């Protein structure tokens, strides 16, 4: 019998709710993601996916409980944001940007020797090594996403959270992302991925959770991602009328 490697934590949300003023953004979400598993979050725009991710990261005040159950000591968490804006006048190169994220020393004092090799290694992994001296603001949307992904790989994460990183990414970039995530899964990393490409979710995800304020459905993609469910989420009108 094959023994599954577990490196990441079990992420557990129980009764997770959140309100902004009078508006309820998340309503009693129960959620579990396991190590070595790719758990995709889908849902319509404004359905609360990014809010859910931010509460997992402890950036927002929530009700209910969120816990990470580690095998041993708490490990590393990598996060890839949806997008990031950098002023064009800021002379920040690609490698400077990553060093900002991974070292304590201010980036203008140079890149720490300790992380220099790691930075080159992750940039090579996302095929951006040849552009490390370019200004971050000069990169295309897809290239920026690759760099954002690269920074989340230092140090090697045990839990990786991605918030729609595939927006504006090209096919090569998407293939690179996909390959790296497969590798991380094999290493037992817990991966939570907010995604909008339903075909890719159906193909790659181990578990999918659809959120539209509350959980619409949850389970193995081939079981739960049927046409009725998807129409229910992504159609503005009630399903009966739409059909």
């Amino acid at each position, binding site marked *: 019998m094959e023994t599954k490697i577990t490196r990441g934590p079990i992420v557990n949300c129980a009764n997770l709710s959140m309100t902004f003023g009078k508006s309820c953004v998340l309503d009693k979400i129960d959620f579990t993601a396991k190590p070595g598993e790719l758990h995709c979050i889908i849902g319509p725009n404004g359905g609360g996916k990014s809010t859910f991710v931010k509460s997992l990261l402890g*950036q927002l005040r929530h009700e209910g409980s969120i816990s*990470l159950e580690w095998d041993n000591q708490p490990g590393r968490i990598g996060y890839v944001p949806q997008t990031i804006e950098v002023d064009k006048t800021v002379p920040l190169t690609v490698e400077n940007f990553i060093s900002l994220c991974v070292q304590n020393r201010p980036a203008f004092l140079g890149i720490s020797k300790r992380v220099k090799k790691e930075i080159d290694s992750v940039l090579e992994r996302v095929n951006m090594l040849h552009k490390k001296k370019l200004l971050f603001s000069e990169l295309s949307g897809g290239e920026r996403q690759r760099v954002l992904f690269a920074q989340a790989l230092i140090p090697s994460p045990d839990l990786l959270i991605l918030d729609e990183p595939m927006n504006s990414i090209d096919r090569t970039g998407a293939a690179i992302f996909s390959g790296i995530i497969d590798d991380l899964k094999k290493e037992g990393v817990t991966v939570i991925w907010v995604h909008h490409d339903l075909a890719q979710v159906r193909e790659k995800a181990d578990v999918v959770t659809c959120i539209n304020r509350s959980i619409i459905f949850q389970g193995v993609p081939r079981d739960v991602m049927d046409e009725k469910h998807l129409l229910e989420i992504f159609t503005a009108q009630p399903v009966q009328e739409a059909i």
Partner: protein
Amino acid sequence: MGKVQVVPLRQRGEILFVMVSTALILLVAAGLIALKKGKTDTNRSLKGYQISGITGLTGNNQGIFTDLYTAALDIEYYHQTNHPGWPTPEQMDIDKISPFVQDQLWQTRGRLVWREQPTGTASTLVHTKAYVGKTAQESVAGSFLVLFEHYHSSDGTYYLAGGKERPYSIWFKADNFDLPATISEGTLIQLGWKEVVSYTGKDQRKELNR
């Protein structure tokens, strides 16, 4: 197995850091101001016959003093370029030089009547000149006297009396006044006139470095 509960960030540390930094900056600033204030107390260095142009005069008197202080530079310049002549108060009224010009402001600031006053000490080597402005309304403003004094050596070199930094001094009397036959610092003091002292930035620095 280690279970970690995700707790929302409260940013308490950051708030505390900002508050402590702010308090520290305020304390240092307050300390520096307190130290500096002690050193720049100009009243301490005033002599008995002097008053401060900043704190010793009422608003109207302060205005007249400031105008006179500026006009004195023009008068001195006139004298040097039209040697040995001095401008008359009438001339300065026509040239609109405050406080000699009798304009709307003059009407509201005590209507001082200016005249030239013989000093009793002028000679070819000692150049002195005095102008007196007598108030018409003591309740509004006092009277002023500006005394010019400089020397020429036999070869024509211009110099000031020992210890003087300016070729003129400005004197103030709040009420009725008498004028001595010979106008000098000593005789004015005897008759109760007060020398008005204005401290410039240069004066302040000197005071601090003393």
